[in-house]
């Protein structure tokens, strides 16, 4: 409410002349209106709408092999002279590009799902205690994988030049995918009144978090070691799902992971195609990753939990469950070798840790 003090403040202004009271506004120069690197190119929406990739026409579609601009200037925009650089370290296309990035981004946006509402949590009921505990333990492991994925991806994403926004935007969706993965599996662990279990041994996780040599090398671990194994594990969990709720979660997560794997493998292929000398570092990274994975597999917790799930309980875990677990490992190895063959990486079965070689397998405690 206005007071006497307010009146004192207003009165002097009211005594000013009309000319004195008007704020001086400079005449608009509008000299920015005719400034554009390219004008008049029109992109029309298609059956999938107006997609990110469809904007790449004319100058706006020129994606050079190097992007020296270390500012946040959008590709195609006119930069401001004198802008200080930001922490952009990845400026070469070969260090992050995958031709499918824009399409993967579009798919991620259009195929999004929400664990809270797209999963019918009312339709799930407690399973026998041994199976429920095993599922909760596996959920714990997958939650941790997802946390690591978010941290790894986001720690690299901000270092990438904005000239390659397709990749940056796609990686933003993978962060969301991983966050959603964490959410869904945490909910599954807790929905029946159970709880989370043990943290995993984290050898592969540490490798990913501490990877500083390059994004391509980090992607090698993220996809060929961690991502591919997670994908195969979830496919087997889908096969042995105990209800429609679990199956829904696994199927949605499978799609999300497929995009990350596609980007990762296509990026590695692009990198090797344009910089063949990178084969050595990628191969070494993979070899180290396999050794870390070997250490993780020595821990019995995940193995036993999966065997219980696959075997329908503790009684079936030792024989049938473990048989399926090993079958799952074999499937992972086949996928890995197929991917390496596609990438022309000289990886053979004999170079893998013995636990991954069907004829050489021996796990502690077997």
């Amino acid at each position: 409410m206005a007071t006497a003090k307010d009146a004192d403040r207003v009165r002097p202004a009211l005594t000013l002349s009309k000319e004195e009271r008007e704020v001086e506004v400079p005449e608009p120069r509008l000299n920015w209106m005719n400034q554009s690197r390219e004008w008049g190119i029109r992109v029309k929406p298609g059956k999938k709408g107006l997609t990110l990739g469809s904007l790449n026409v004319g100058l706006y579609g020129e994606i050079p092999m190097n992007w020296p601009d270390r500012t946040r200037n959008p590709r195609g925009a006119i930069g401001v002279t004198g802008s200080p650089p930001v922490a952009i370290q990845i400026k070469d296309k070969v260090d992050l590009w995958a031709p499918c990035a824009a399409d993967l981004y579009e798919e991620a946006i259009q195929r999004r799902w929400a664990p809270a509402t797209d999963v019918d949590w009312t339709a799930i009921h407690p399973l026998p205690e041994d199976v429920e505990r095993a599922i909760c333990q596996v959920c714990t492991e997958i939650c941790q994988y997802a946390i690591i994925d978010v941290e790894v991806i986001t720690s690299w994403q901000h270092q990438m030049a904005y000239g390659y926004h397709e990749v940056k935007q796609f990686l933003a969706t993978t962060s969301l995918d991983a966050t959603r993965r964490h959410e869904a599996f945490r909910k599954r662990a807790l929905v029946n009144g159970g709880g989370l279990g043990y943290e995993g041994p984290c050898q592969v996780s540490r490798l990913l978090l501490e990877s500083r040599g390059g994004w391509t090398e980090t992607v090698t671990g993220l996809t060929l070691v961690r991502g591919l194994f997670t994908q195969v594990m979830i496919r087997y969990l889908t096969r042995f799902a105990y209800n429609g709720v679990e199956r829904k979660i696994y199927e949605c997560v499978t799609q999300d992971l497929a995009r990350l794997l596609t980007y990762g493998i296509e990026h590695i292929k692009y990198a090797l195609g344009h910089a063949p000398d990178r084969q050595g570092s990628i191969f070494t990274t993979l070899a180290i990753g396999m050794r870390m994975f070997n250490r993780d597999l020595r821990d019995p917790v995940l193995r036993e939990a999966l065997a219980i799930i696959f075997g329908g309980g503790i009684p079936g875990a030792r024989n049938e469950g473990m048989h399926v677990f090993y079958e799952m490992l074999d499937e992972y190895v086949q996928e890995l070798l197929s991917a390496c063959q596609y990438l022309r990486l000289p990886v053979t079965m004999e170079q893998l840790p013995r636990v991954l070689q069907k004829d050489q397998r021996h796990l502690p405690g077997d």
Partner: protein
Amino acid sequence: MAWFDAVRDIYNHDDAMHGAGSGSCDCVVGLQVGREFFQLIFEGFECSEARKVTKAKLDECDFYLHMPSKDWRAMLQNIQEHGHATDNYTLNTLDLDRAEGLSTSTHNDQVFSI
């Protein structure tokens, strides 16, 4: 072909199949059913076309699924009986049960089953 068109029609008009993580894609899918070959064209949220093709047309597919006719029939009977694929008849299980997998391509670029 009438069967494919009927399924296409259901898929294209059922919004429940277009959200919650499913629906939109852009690919040409091939199917080998015994010695017959089919193409399904997916554009966005629509299966825009299904057609019977020759084996050579599999080259145009992003990937194709192949099983003997009896296995396709068993899968469809399972779906008809339960309203959805169960147990050993989901595409995931069918793929895992096969040493060579369920999906492949003529270009050797379907290097892993997803």
